[in-house]
């Protein structure tokens, strides 16, 4: 323990509120002129309790906080189903160009022609890559896209006077799938997986009838496997008049090589913050455009972009649309970044993205097949899945492996997901990792596997991580006695 509590470059940093000096500010603004206000007597009389700091203190505060984060810039992020790939800085530059970054969403059309053309161009790339005729750009993230897609489906069904009540979701699905279906007023039924880690077509058939609104399917699925019977599944759903919703979370595996439209998909959201490299920013913002089939396109939410008189235009009011799911036109800042990424790769580069991401995942699986137990026989797509059979009787758990990986300098893979595999470890390297990095990761995993079988391994693993800014945190107390905000030690006027 050091005198300061700091550990070399790893600084302990108090909360902003603990550095407060009332009256101090980090922004110099002109002095107000004073005089009568027009607030109708609603002016606030008590302070809010915001902290006062000067600019250097704020800059240092957040710089120190940043140094306590893992990031893709710093190392590999093998998070399955999250596609944490390199985020090009060119995207950041162009998103900030005057004439793009400083546009107000409600400017007159004639002053934003380039912006609308840009959105139209993004739409062209997305629909071409997906082999689908239309795309709704407005959803703010993947889950928002799912909501948009299911609302579109429900609108299309209601338009043909066909009220359906059930949505089918595989056991292995992301939690957002059932949550979204429920938010759209549907009853959720889950479909079991086969021993091959794919949707059980027989079980699907058994559940299909005229009351099924949609099947929600991720492909490649969350086990990292391509649903080889997907076209048959789509045919069956269409046969009973239902729609096929594709979850595009794993699009990175097939972009430029397989078009969802050719698989029978009616609607699919695309996470621009996964496949198309817009930065994840510690939890957003994302962007989740939804590609749509001919049958669904007319019901897409507002706004629409239509080409009229040889020019793309923004349509903000339209009868057939099912409504509006946000204030304005979509995550423009993310559209710019994603389009810059697409144009940088081009049709040839994007195809290579899919191939390299699949190659990297299969390479990791092959290299670790004797140290960990692959959940299913290969080949996998862009991510490889292991279960915890290899840890049997060691007392070491999947969680322990994840935490120990932190001490080895890697971010943990996705763990305990998908739920259909016991003690799942889901590894997605992505195409932007070099072979050297993969070999280092493989080496670390092999070492952990070996140590897991040594004497007293359990205790040592339970202690990990020991080299991170923090050891394991007490999530139980956090949930039992929630402390969700800072409060002044001595209750002041600022506190409620």
């Amino acid at each position, binding site marked *: 323990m050091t005198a300061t509590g700091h550990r070399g470059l790893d600084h302990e940093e108090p909360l902003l509120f603990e550095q407060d000096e009332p009256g101090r500010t980090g922004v110099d603004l002109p002095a107000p002129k004073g005089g009568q206000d027009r607030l109708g007597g609603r002016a606030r009389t008590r302070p809010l309790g915001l902290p006062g700091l000067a600019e250097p203190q704020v800059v240092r505060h957040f710089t120190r906080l940043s140094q306590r984060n893992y990031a893709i810039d710093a190392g590999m992020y093998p998070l399955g189903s999250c596609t944490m790939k390199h985020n090009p800085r060119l995207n950041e530059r162009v998103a900030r160009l005057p004439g793009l970054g400083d546009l107000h969403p409600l400017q007159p059309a004639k002053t934003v022609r380039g912006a609308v053309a840009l959105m139209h161009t993004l739409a062209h790339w997305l629909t071409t890559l997906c082999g689908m005729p239309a795309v709704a750009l407005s959803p703010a993230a993947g889950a928002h896209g799912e909501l948009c897609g299911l609302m579109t489906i429900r609108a299309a069904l209601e338009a043909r006077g066909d009220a359906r009540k059930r949505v089918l979701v595989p056991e292995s699905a992301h939690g957002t799938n059932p949550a979204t279906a429920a938010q759209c007023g549907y009853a959720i039924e889950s479909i079991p997986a086969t021993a091959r880690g794919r949707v059980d077509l027989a079980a699907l058939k058994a559940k299909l009838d005229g009351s099924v609104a949609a099947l929600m399917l991720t492909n490649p699925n969350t086990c990292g496997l391509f649903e080889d019977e997907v076209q048959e599944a789509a045919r069956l759903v269409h046969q009973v008049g239902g729609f096929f919703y594709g979850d595009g979370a794993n699009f990175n595996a097939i972009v430029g090589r397989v078009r969802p439209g050719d698989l029978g998909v009616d609607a699919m959201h695309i996470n621009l913050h996964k496949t198309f490299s817009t930065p994840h920013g510690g939890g957003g913002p994302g962007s989740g455009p939804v590609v749509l089939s001919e049958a669904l396109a007319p019901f897409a939410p507002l706004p629409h972009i239509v080409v009229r*008189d*040889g020019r*793309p235009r923004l349509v903000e009011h339209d009868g057939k649309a099912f409504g509006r799911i946000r204030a304005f036109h979509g995550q423009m800042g993310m559209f710019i970044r994603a389009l810059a990424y697409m144009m940088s790769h081009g049709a040839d580069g994007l195809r290579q993205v899919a191939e390299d991401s699949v190659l990297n995942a299969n390479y990791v699986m092959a290299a670790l097949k004797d140290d960990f137990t692959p959940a299913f026989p290969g080949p996998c797509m862009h991510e490889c899945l292991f279960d915890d059979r290899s840890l049997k009787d060691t007392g070491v758990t999947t969680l322990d492996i994840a935490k120990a990986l932190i001490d080895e300098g890697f971010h943990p893979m996705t763990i305990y997901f998908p739920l259909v595999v016991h003690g799942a470890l889901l590894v997605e390297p992505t195409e932007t990792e070099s072979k050297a990095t993969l070999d280092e990761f493989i080496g670390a995993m092999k070492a952990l596997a070996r140590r897991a079988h040594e004497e007293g391994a359990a205790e040592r693993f339970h202690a990990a991580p020991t080299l991170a800014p923090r050891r394991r945190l007490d999530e139980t107390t956090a949930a039992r006695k929630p402390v969700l905000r800072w409060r002044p030690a001595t209750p002041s006027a600022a506190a409620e």
Partner: protein
Amino acid sequence: MTESPRVTDVESLLRTPLHDLHVSLGARMVPFAGYSMPVQYPTGILAEHRHTRTAAGLFDVAHMGQVTLRGPDVHRRLETLVPADVQGIAPGAVRYSQLTDEQGGILDDLMISNAGDHVVAVVNASRKHADVAHMKAGLPGIAVELAEDRALLALQGPGSAAVMARLAPPAAALAFMTFTACPVAGIPCGVSRSGYTGEDGFEISVPADRAVALAERLLAEPEVRPIGLGARDSLRLEAGLCLYGHDIDTTTTPVEAGLAWSIQARRRREGGFPGAAVIQRQLAEGPPRRRVGLRPEGSAPAREGTEILDAAGNAIGRVTSGGFGPTVSAPVAMGYVAAAAAAPGTPVQLVVRGQARPARVVALPFVPHRYKRS
């Protein structure tokens, strides 16, 4: 009447950067304005004309002059040579105008683009050197520069917007008569939404050494085919657009030529351009003669120079452009007639091969323009 210089010695003809490409595409090359240019490709003029009206045609117009004018107050200064409201051109916009002489005659017609700190003028190939000399003399202190290192391509037709949307997405946002700097298939270009066919289309200024690459890239698009001078002439004729040296020259004024629309209100009021007195009078009192459209009743085309008689047989003017209109699928012509006979519907006679044949004055254009105005 100013004619294109008659060059017989083919070897001495100038060549555009696309010359070898034209030859390799099987074009029939002819002398035009001192250049060896493609008059048609193996598919033939009719096919090229129809293709441009239905899909997209690529034209080599690199022989035309791209002139940069730079200097203090250049917008206002240029107004001393042209009747257009140059100061009123919004940044990024293009305007059509004419260089006029003291009698109000037309020295050349041109496109003027406001590039903010400077102005770009596109002038006719046959006149470009004369125009530059004229501008230099008329605009002391303004740097007038004829770009020798740039080529000009035109992509015209209803399919051109889709092509540009793929190869130059920002250009898809352009309105008719506006321009922007924008890469086309990765090649840095200047693109304007304008043309000489009456169709939607784009004119692309490209560095000469990248012109062949750009042309080949454009021709690789499914909609695009190369189009020669022959179809270019029939297209502009159907669109009722003037060809300098034929429909307009120093003997015609903008008002007689039906180009008064290109003289904005402020200039009409204030004048201050060569020949303003003549032109303002013609604007007020009407011109003695007018350029009109002519539709021969038979199937015999009336060529340039054909004499125009009124119903009573009195000579009232001459045809300045004429030929078969593939889209109209009938002969069409333009010419000047006495103002009294200029009203659409007026019956006239055209003397073709010594025989007077019935025709009618009609409104221009013969084929409606399909520009993409905002």
